């Protein structure tokens, strides 16, 4: 599989602040790749280094096999969609989109044709003559994407481009962006702090924290098999149980947590190692649903919160361990605070994190 962008041990320091810390990534051709993390995790700096708007303190960046580490943005086959779009206010939609093509001295008729095509692609046919201030937020968004895509970049970089849109429009644009990426086949690198957005659109996600990459995997893998406590907590919700591996064999893993023995399928650590278990709230079953579970205890309901389609229940196990369970509201009938209840989850749903 062709690799479009490769980062080798890339670091970026701003004075004494380490924004990006020895990041290595290989992004495949045609992939929708997301850099996901909280603000200040280094995701935007990483993207800007790929685009040539920022230069690494150490490490190498390769674009389609060629080292581009110190090439300025205007010499790279990357184009960026900026967080605040950065459309040129003194130019029309057509002039904005044609900006890059004109700089490459393409023939006027070729420019006109390409701009027309890309306006079709982003569903804004005939908008070329408009002024930027005449456009709505969603339309500006499309123009910004068109302005970058029309240059046929090797890689399209997107820096939280949907951040300024309201929720409904954002959801619509997510689907549209994904479809667009599918149609043009260009590699997209997408920066976001919104885990839902990343899970919806990405082929693969790199979760970043404090300048480092915590895990790189597909959406499903990241959600089902987080490798670190940070990833498990950042993507969705999780119950964390600190314990120690007491047995690890081909038949499964046993982790001791406050006197409980919790079964899991695999562990990244040998017997004796201190680990953290992560269990998603929706995997914690209550009552009869917990009967067949490999991990099954009795406990008491502490609090029940109705949230619409789902109900959240906080339960305390007999040993004192507290857990949050999330269940469909039809399965929540009869749950009242103080009631005794069976609590359980499958061995496959205990994810053992290192440390």
């Amino acid at each position: 599989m062709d690799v479009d962008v490769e980062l080798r041990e890339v670091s970026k320091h701003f004075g004494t602040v380490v924004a990006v810390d020895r990041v290595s990534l290989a992004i495949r051709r045609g992939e929708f790749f997301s850099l996901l993390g909280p603000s200040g995790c280094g995701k935007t700096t990483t993207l800007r280094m790929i685009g040539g708007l920022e230069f690494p303190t150490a490490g190498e960046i390769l674009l389609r096999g060629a080292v581009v580490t110190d090439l300025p943005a205007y010499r790279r086959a990357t184009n960026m969609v900026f967080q605040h779009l950065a459309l040129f206010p003194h130019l029309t939609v057509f002039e904005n989109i044609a900006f890059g093509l004109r700089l490459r001295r393409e023939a006027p008729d070729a420019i006109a044709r390409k701009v027309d095509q890309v306006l079709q692609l982003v569903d804004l046919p005939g908008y070329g003559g408009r002024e930027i201030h005449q456009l709505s937020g969603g339309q500006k968004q499309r123009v910004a994407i068109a302005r970058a895509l029309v240059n046929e970049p090797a890689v399209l970089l997107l820096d939280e481009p949907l951040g300024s849109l309201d929720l409904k429009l954002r959801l619509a644009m997510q689907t549209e962006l994904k479809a667009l990426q599918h149609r043009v086949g260009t590699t997209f690198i997408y920066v976001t702090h919104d885990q839902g957005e990343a899970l919806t659109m990405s082929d693969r996600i790199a979760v970043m924290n404090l300048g480092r990459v915590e895990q790189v995997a597909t959406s499903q893998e990241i959600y089902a098999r987080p490798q670190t406590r940070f990833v498990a907590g950042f993507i969705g919700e999780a119950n964390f149980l600190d314990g120690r591996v007491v047995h690890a064999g081909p038949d499964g893993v046993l982790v001791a947590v406050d006197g409980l023995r919790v079964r899991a399928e695999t562990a990244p650590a040998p017997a004796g190692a201190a680990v953290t278990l992560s269990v998603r709230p929706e995997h914690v079953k209550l009552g009869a649903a917990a009967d067949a579970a490999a991990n099954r205890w009795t406990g008491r309901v502490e609090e029940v919160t109705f949230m619409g389609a789902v109900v959240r229940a906080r339960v305390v196990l007999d040993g004192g361990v507290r857990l949050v369970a999330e269940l469909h509201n039809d399965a929540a009938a009869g749950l009242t605070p103080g009631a005794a209840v069976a609590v359980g989850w499958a061995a496959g749903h205990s994810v053992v994190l290192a440390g």
Partner: protein
Amino acid sequence: MPQIVVRRGGWRAALRRYAHVPLLTPAVGLTVAVFWVCMAVLVVMSVYPFLAAGTPRLTLAAWQRLLGDPYYWGVIGTTLRLAFVVTALALVLGYPAAYAISKIQRPGWALAAYVVLFAPILVSVVVRTYGWLLLLSNTGVVNYLLRAAGLIREPIPLIFNETGIVIAMVHILLPFMVFPILSVVGQVGGDLKEAAMDLGANRWVTFRRITLPLTAPGVISGCQIVFTLTISAFVTPFLMGGGRVQILSGLIYRDMEAVNLGFASVVALVLLALAVAILAASNVLTRRTYRRAEVERA
């Protein structure tokens, strides 16, 4: 609640509606009294030249004298040429200065730059002009240094000619060019420049295609201010020109001294007409560039 509704159309509301009237009155009053009344007097005096002396008599003699004499056309030409050259040089020097000041990150340094640039405004124009006379005279520092460096043998005449006027005027008016540009150049977002670079523009192209058009409103108002101040300047051209460069404001002075009020009025009106014409022309330009730049900031 009902009381408030009743009072909505009452005297309080009326007071509120016309609250701007007392605020405007002094400024409008002053402008009307000093400017428009004086203008009217000028117009009358230009056709009744002996108004002050005695029997008024309608005559266009003063107008014919000015507009019929090639010498005076030459004076008008010199005045316009000086104004254009000073404006152009102030722009060439002022734009980079404004750009550089907007780039200063540290607040202390920015303040220092402001002080250096704008402090000369606090010094009297007469004092600054005499300063330039000393610097630029045949025995002045500039000619001395040029001779000492072996670049020239004979001193270059830098005063009592247009060169001297231009040098001093550019220096005196430079802050008026820098300030309007400074106020817009900082508003051109860094992300616009990055976007241009991302699309393949190097620094120069980014400047030409993005920064320059977006700062055009500041450039135009700076040019308007410098141009109007130059065209009507008197003290500096008078001292630096040493009586050898004749411009319109000098004519007014000469004819006022000679109690030739009719001709002085005509010259004053011509000067006004020139300034208005140039301002109107540049306003057309402004409206074109402003329309987009203004919207961007909104």
